[in-house]
């Protein structure tokens, strides 16, 4: 049963990613990315990371994708705003040729590792409580730095989006 779920989820993840890569219209690209992200969230659940499954759906599929789709509608993108990409498929083929050796090296390295049982287990591994305990005990400095980073990003994006008005008032 798990194998069928895995094959379906990975098929949708890769298909969504390829759809994101080849569509000209950024709206279709965003929807392909959404399919891919939801499938990756399903793979997280298959790997016993239940908390990360929820975080992936809420943050990526909820917040970031809403931001992207809202921005695409807000900018009212028309055909003449899109860049012309005459050599797109040639460059995609070139990228595939560049990435194949890299992939082979990594897959060879991973396949030499001893095999382990990766099935879903009935334990508290990956639940909210043990992850929270670990986060606030061992990773507290990283947590605080992340909160400062988010504050800086919040202020910075407001300043960037408001800059035109401030310039007009000054001049």
């Amino acid at each position: 049963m798990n194998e069928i779920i895995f094959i379906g989820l990975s098929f949708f993840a890769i298909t969504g990613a390829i759809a994101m890569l080849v569509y000209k219209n950024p709206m279709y690209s965003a929807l392909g990315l959404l399919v891919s992200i939801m499938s990756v969230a399903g793979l997280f659940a298959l790997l016993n990371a239940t908390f990360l499954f929820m975080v992936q759906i809420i943050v990526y599929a909820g917040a970031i994708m809403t931001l992207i789709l809202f921005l695409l509608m807000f900018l009212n993108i028309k055909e003449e705003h899109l860049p012309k990409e005459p050599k797109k498929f040639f460059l995609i083929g070139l990228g595939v040729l560049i990435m194949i050796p890299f992939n082979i090296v990594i897959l060879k390295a991973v396949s030499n590792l001893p095999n382990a049982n990766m099935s879903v287990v009935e334990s508290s591994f990956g639940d909210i409580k043990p992850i929270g305990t670990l986060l606030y005990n061992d990773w507290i400095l990283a947590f605080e730095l992340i909160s400062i980073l988010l504050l800086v990003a919040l202020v910075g994006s407001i300043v960037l989006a408001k800059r035109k008005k401030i310039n007009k008032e000054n001049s």
Partner: protein
Amino acid sequence: MISLTSYAFVSMILFSIGVIGVIARRNIFVIYMSIELMLNGVNLFLITFARYHFNMDPQIITIMVISIAAAEAAIFLSVIILLFRSKRSLDTDIFTTLTQGEK
């Protein structure tokens, strides 16, 4: 039983498609989404190894990566708004604006 290599295969494919998107496309939205896809591939790799070693530290690192991606989304998208307002285009060639000075 699903092996470690098959999860690694899926995450490597996702990462590679992200890299190819950054190389091959000129639409700035698609480049941004390719970066998100690369982060997703790395996250999947981390979660796979968390399950493989039965250790939750990579899951914490994944939470950090997701929050950094959220911060990056806010900055990147506001920069896209600025560039689109001034140039009315989504072409990455508008980044040459830094070399041309004020117009």
